[in-house]
């Protein structure tokens, strides 16, 4: 599906609620890209379900227009899995912050990746806890000074892409919220991917993170899309980029061309929402089994 063939415009995914993000927050750009990608892939708000985590990032559920749930901290992915399994016809997009996804939600992340449900997961990675006012996050640098790390966290930051790869990811993307076009494009590919489309988005926090700034990302990001040699289906090449702690990469870093989504493997088809007024046909057989 492409934007040409669809009547839904990006603006249809916008709600009339005014974002309360700080002026300049990366999340504005991140959200815009998500809305564009949803529109470009021919989705409709009435057939789309957004699950948002808790954090500044988690507010997107309110600012976008679709069916949506703003859950509890760290549990957005399982909610998305439930939605998609109960109705594979829906477009399911899960989103949240680095704390939500890689700290309190780290376990779910590992397991959602390996389940390879056909949905997308967009993490707004600002390397800080924004909503709770500036404590270090799992992606914060070892020496990043915050209220709870006056001398830096002194522990290896989580590498979300590596974690995804180790968990058996079939799609790994990374973008930068202010590179609007690339960001929307990669998210679009994540949506189109047949399986779990994971995109880590550098979405700077202008209020509490003075290290991982727009300038920093602008200068350090290497776009794999610019590299004609790069083969996103080559796992080894992906590992090399992902484990490279000297550089930050943008683009689709890895995609398994043979990915088969969970739903297909398990033969899940159609919505589970429609049920008969009484017990379903064949229910009496269940009783007979106990003879």
């Amino acid at each position, binding site marked *: 599906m492409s934007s040409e063939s669809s009547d839904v415009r990006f603006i249809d995914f916008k*709600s*009339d*609620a005014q974002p309360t993000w700080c002026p300049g927050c990366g999340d504005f750009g991140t959200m815009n890209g998500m809305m564009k990608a949803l529109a470009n892939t021919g989705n409709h*708000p*009435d*057939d*789309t*379900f*957004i*699950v948002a985590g808790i954090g500044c990032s988690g507010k997107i*559920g*309110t600012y976008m*227009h*679709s*069916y*949506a*749930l*703003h*859950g*509890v901290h760290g*549990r957005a*992915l*399982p*909610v*998305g*899995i*439930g*939605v*998609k*399994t*109960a*109705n594979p*016809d*829906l477009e399911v997009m899960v989103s949240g912050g680095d704390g939500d996804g890689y700290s309190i939600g780290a*376990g*779910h992340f*590992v*397991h959602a990746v390996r389940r390879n449900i056909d949905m997308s997961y967009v993490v707004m990675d600002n390397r800080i806890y924004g909503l709770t006012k500036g404590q270090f996050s799992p992606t914060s640098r070892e020496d990043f000074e915050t209220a709870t790390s006056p001398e830096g966290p002194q522990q290896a930051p989580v590498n979300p892409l590596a974690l995804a790869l180790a968990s058996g990811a079939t799609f790994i993307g990374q973008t930068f919220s202010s590179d609007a076009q690339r960001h929307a494009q990669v998210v679009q590919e994540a949506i189109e991917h047949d399986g779990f489309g994971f995109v880590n988005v550098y979405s700077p926090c202008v209020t509490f993170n003075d290290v991982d700034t727009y300038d920093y990302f602008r200068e350090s990001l290497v776009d794999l899309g610019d590299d004609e040699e790069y083969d996103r289906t080559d796992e080894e090449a992906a590992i090399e980029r992902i484990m490279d702690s000297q550089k930050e990469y943008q683009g689709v870093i890895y995609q398994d061309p043979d990915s088969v989504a969970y739903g297909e493997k*398990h*033969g*899940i*088809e*159609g*919505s*589970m*929402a429609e*049920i*008969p*007024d*009484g*017990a*379903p046909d*064949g*229910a*009496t057989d*269940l*009783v*007979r089994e*106990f*003879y």
Partner: protein
Amino acid sequence: MPEDLNWAVGGEAGDGIDSTGKIFAQALSRAGRHVFTSKDFASRIRGGYTAYKIRTSTERIESVVDSLDVLIALTQRTVEENTEELHDGSVIIYDGERTMMEDFEAPEGTVGLSVPLQRLAEEAGGAIMQNVVALGAACAVCEFDVSYLDESLEKRFGGKGSSIVDNNKEAARAGRDYVNDEIADTFPYDLDTTDADYVLLNGDEAIGMGAIAAGCRFYAGYPITPATDVMEYLKGRIERFGGHVVQAEDELSAINMALGAARAGARAMTATSGPGIDLMAETFGLVATTETPMVICDVMRSGPSTGMPTKQEQGDLDMLLHGGHGEIPRFVVGATTVAECFHKTIEAFNLAEKYQTPVYLVADLALSVTEQTYPPEEFDMDAVEVDRGPLVRGSDIEEWTNDSDQFTPHAATESGVSPRTIPGTAGGAHMTTGLEHDELGRRTEETEVRVEQVDKRQRKVETAQRDEAWTAREFGDADSGTLVLSWGSNEGAIREAMELLDEQGTTIRFLSVPYLFPRPDLTEAVEAAEEVIVVECNATGQFADVIEHDTLTRVKRINKYDGVRFDADELAAHITDVLAGGDGKGDSDPDSGTVNETDAETDAEQEITT
């Protein structure tokens, strides 16, 4: 010849005790006999004593008794664990040729029947069939036609090929023949058969079947004793009805998956036991605040913490009624019998959707491991009704949109219940959140809206209190001055205890309460009684406290917290004791951990003389 036979097979965990017992239970059921089973077991895979016990009668049975007529003892310890239950004339079947049983002597008064189980099994095709040989021997002892075993042997071993089935049938006959031919004693047991056709199932299976009947299509869970059977029942079955089971990575995930499925419009459920209920507490509040219909099943086991995972307790009531931070409207529905596990599951789904709230469906280990016979009509699929509540579709949506055409999923209606649309419904797109929100589901901190939404959620409970019949199951003499109250699986034992008490000339009024919240108003019943006794399997008397608060009356308590379910004899003794002004320990088992707990203030007031 007693109608009522108490039978058991016991040995080490890993000896196949469970399937052996189940084969015999099914055979009895096939023969038109009622069966009520219980299990003694330890949460180890091997190396722990375990037993499968069957009480059988041509009449319906609802409880265990502390008596054993026929015991297949694969180990010495099996006999030791059951000395109290054995009586004059009890028959113990054992293999005197096994080294560890060589020196075995049957307790005084009992009949020790040495049958060379292993040898006969080997002759029939393999030592592994020794338990089946024992079953054959047991048939001979009970004058029960061994061919009743055939159908269950086929069920169990059919998958492994017909020669295995045949060998097993032969093994059973070898056991029977050995008793008939080599021992040739007669025993005081003779099992009648009837033409009735029963089904045999346990509480977890009944919950699973109820869920499918009610239209549940999505189940997410994480294995935990004694709730795992619900998941294992559903897996492989729910798919036939278009559903799916996810084994989640933990309970936090399981409840959130179910929440997602429920928001997508499916009837969704998760089941767990105490530790999982704790882990689900945070999301439980989210389910309630977002007004998502969902059923969360708690099959209680002995706590606190990991406690005794394979032992009985009804210790989670406080948590189910009060757990989770903040103020969470909820429903708590409990099953009191195996059949009720089926019916209450269906009801739970209907309540959840009618009132758009999470419903705790509570059962206990005793229900979940009990396999019990019922006429199949008890599970009448044609009688199942599904009420999805105010699900709004098509153009009806317009009624529930605001001036800007936005759907209002949390409209503050008079009943407190709001319209509900499911994703995919045109024009119904909306969000919801665990933050306090307005009618549109968007966060708010406006004091008026906050108060309106709290009141609205509370109003759902009030509406339900008014509109639904929150009845108790009543038994006994409505005019008796003695009122016994209970919840959960104790119902059966109390009913049997009532028969025993009746024989002594003591009548009581018994209300078995399946609705824990909202619950029946018991004020009148309590006020009408001279003596109120609350029976429950826990130490602190959680239900008793609830009753005391509801009725402003102190009650007496019979509590048991040693991990073993009540049995009828014991209960009758305790009740008698309490009525005689005793402390509720009765004259039965002094170590049973049963106590009569009352608040310090009350002790003085009541001046109980012991």
